């Protein structure tokens, strides 16, 4: 009896394995078929430009899935973010699976903390998920030769690229390949807690003179614990670059060369230090002593003791939500008296990319198109990843009033102000991370470990070393 049972079990196991093998083969065959079909579609497209026009009209409709064999396919999709982004993306995935019922999407998501490290390892070991939300600089860091991400030009039948401007797609093009689709553009801008400024009896600052005066007023009227703005190390670095670009009218890095001398950078650091000296921003030691993981989790921000931030327009909503009830959060103005030029830059805030290793690039492209271009996906995602760059995505959001008004207002102000390009290496890990050069220079200056000249030299040496890599 035991022998019969064993035989039966062995037979079931063999059959199961055979079935698995059949699935794989079919999936592979499916992949080949899809490629052939894509090629056919390309040929047809060349022959018939009218069909191209029709496609443009269909940019908002579900992508053509006739090329698919509709064998069940499972793809993995990774992103980082906060709770509201997770909820919206999960809802969008559900809707996507209803529309494209042969595709199952396995989500992998979490907070930003530690995310970049784990994704770097995944890309280096070729084990990354199929579709990935990526930071703009990951294209340069992980795929300078195009080896980590698929060239999305090859999937232009599925992803409606006509929804994006050429300039925005160029930002994600490296080594001659479109390695990702940009989701939104973002830049830094001031935000104020108007309630605290009202309490101090002054208006929110619109120029540097008012900002310095606010520091003094806060100290005298509200107390030593109150500051008009809280600037961490990286905030200081970005504000300094905005300031220097406003003063000198030249981009930070051009053609892999730092455009500023140590003396010029010293002037920028002097500006940053003057904010601390004038009680405009707390020292780095004070911020560290607050013991908060980030500013939006800092009780002093929540209570209005820190009354301003210099943040990405796409991240503002988390700071707004963190405020205690009854506090008014408003978008500030760029300070025109910083210099003769409109300093600052905008960058791709996030992008979607397909891993080079995925066996199902078509299905991945369908998911990206659904999230960015299709009405059903856009309506769920709204402005969870910033103001959509996709023409149709933006149109849907505007027509249906789906945009967060604060995020939209800030984004309009950022994009109409900033005028300088950003080199992707500005966000290189050895510069930007908490043990990187920016943190060392800014905290060293604030703690008094570095003089202005020392801090400027630390920045120059560190940035040049990073650019040389």
């Amino acid at each position: 009896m035991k022998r019969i049972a064993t035989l039966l079990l062995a037979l079931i196991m063999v059959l199961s394995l055979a079935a698995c093998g059949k699935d794989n083969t079919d999936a592979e065959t499916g992949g080949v078929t899809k490629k052939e079909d894509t090629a056919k579609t390309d040929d047809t497209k060349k022959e018939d430009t009218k069909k191209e026009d029709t496609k443009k009209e269909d940019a908002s409709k579900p992508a053509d899935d006739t090329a698919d064999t509709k064998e069940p396919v499972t793809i993995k999709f990774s992103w980082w973010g906060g709770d509201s982004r997770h909820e919206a993306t999960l809802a969008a995935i559900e809707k996507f699976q209803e529309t494209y019922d042969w595709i199952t999407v396995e989500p992998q998501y979490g907070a930003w903390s530690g995310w970049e490290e784990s994704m770097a390892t995944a890309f280096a070991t070729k084990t990354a998920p199929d579709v990935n939300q990526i930071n703009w600089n990951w294209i340069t860091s992980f795929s300078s030769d195009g080896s980590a991400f698929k060239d999305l030009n090859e999937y232009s039948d599925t992803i409606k690229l006509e929804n994006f401007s050429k300039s925005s797609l160029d930002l994600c093009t490296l080594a001659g390949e479109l390695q990702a689709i940009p989701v939104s553009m973002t830049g830094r801008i001031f935000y104020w807690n108007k309630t605290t400024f009202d309490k101090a009896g002054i208006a929110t600052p619109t120029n540097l003179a008012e900002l310095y005066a606010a520091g003094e007023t806060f100290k005298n009227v509200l107390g030593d614990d109150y500051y008009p703005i809280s600037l961490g190390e990286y905030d200081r670095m970005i504000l300094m670059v905005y300031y220097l670009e406003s003063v000198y009218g030249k981009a930070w890095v051009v053609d892999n060369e730092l455009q500023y001398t140590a003396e010029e950078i010293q002037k920028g650091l002097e500006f940053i230090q003057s904010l601390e000296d004038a009680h405009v921003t707390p020292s780095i030691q004070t911020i560290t002593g607050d013991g908060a993981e980030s500013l939006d989790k800092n009780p002093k921000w929540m209570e209005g003791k820190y009354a301003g931030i210099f943040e990405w327009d796409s991240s503002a909503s988390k700071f707004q939500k963190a405020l205690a009830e009854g506090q008014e959060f408003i978008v500030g103005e760029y300070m025109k008296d910083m210099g003769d030029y409109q300093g600052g830059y905008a960058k791709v805030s996030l992008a979607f990319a397909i891993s080079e290793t995925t066996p199902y690039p078509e299905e991945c492209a369908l998911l990206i198109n659904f999230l960015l271009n299709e009405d059903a996906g856009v309506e769920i995602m709204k402005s969870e990843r910033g103001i959509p760059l996709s023409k149709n995505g933006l149109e849907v959001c505007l027509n249906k009033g789906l945009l967060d008004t604060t995020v939209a207002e800030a984004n309009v102000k950022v994009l109409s102000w900033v005028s300088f390009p950003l080199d992707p290496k500005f966000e290189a890990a050895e510069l930007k991370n908490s043990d990187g050069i920016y943190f060392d220079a800014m905290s060293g200056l604030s703690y008094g470990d570095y003089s202005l000249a020392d801090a400027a030299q630390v920045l120059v040496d560190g940035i040049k070393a990073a650019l040389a890599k």
Partner: protein
Amino acid sequence: MAKNVSGISIEASPGKSKIKKNLRRNIGFIYVLPWLIGFLVFRLYPFISSFFYSFTDFQLFDGIKEVGLMNYKEIFASPKIMKAFNVTFKYAFITVPLKLAISLFIAYILNFKLKGVKLFRTAYYIPSILGGSVAIAVLWKAVFRDDGLLNTALAFFGVEGPQWLSDPSYALFVISLLRVWQFGSAMVIFLAALKAVPNDLYEAAAIDGAGRGRQFLSITIPIITPVVFYNLVTQLCQAFQEFNGPYIITQGGPRNSTTLISLLIYNNAFKSYEMGMASAMAWLMFIILTVFTVIAFLSQKYWVHYSDEEAK
């Protein structure tokens, strides 16, 4: 006729019986095979490959090139790395003695026949199983931030507390205290050793007029020195490899005052993608730790008393 494991006799061909004989002969090896595979793949292979990588400029996304001893030279030339080694030594020399002393003291108290002693033993062990988690980071920050529990309590007595987390002179102590607080496992080992000390020795000492302190120093300590030695070596190894505390609470700050070498290795490997340099630092750390362990073992003959040696 052959017997299977459960003792049931079965008919077997000569071929089958040979296989079974081999199987029986190597059954021990089969049992340890899963561990062995794990050891080879997840321990030995990374161990050897990291040694090779330490002589290269291996960058996660930029390929690999041999650079000889360059990484090791850079380590000694880099003030940041040398500071991390210095901080690690300080951390180990604060944490290990403090943890051993506290765990021995608590174990000594819990060895008395007290009411509810089992509850106390469990309570004191709980911090050890919490490890390094986000919850612990939140708790520690809530206690040690400028307006945290500790400074609020000190202010109640009119004392202005220091800036525990943001002052480079205090931050390392805060990190060290986290590990000291998690003294449960060392305490349990001490407790087992204390229970093994024969009661008649204490009774004889008491008859001779020795007080509790004298009994502890002259009877308890000498008898449990092998366990003290064991805890010393394991705690030393743990302290030199400490990662969780600085990673979850201070991220190495302020001003690198809590950047232990393991955190710097992690940052180099997974944030800057410099695997070659990270491997060299790991190997240097391994060599230093080996030296300390060897010194500890050599020092045994001067202060550790094994019962079998007494018999000789």
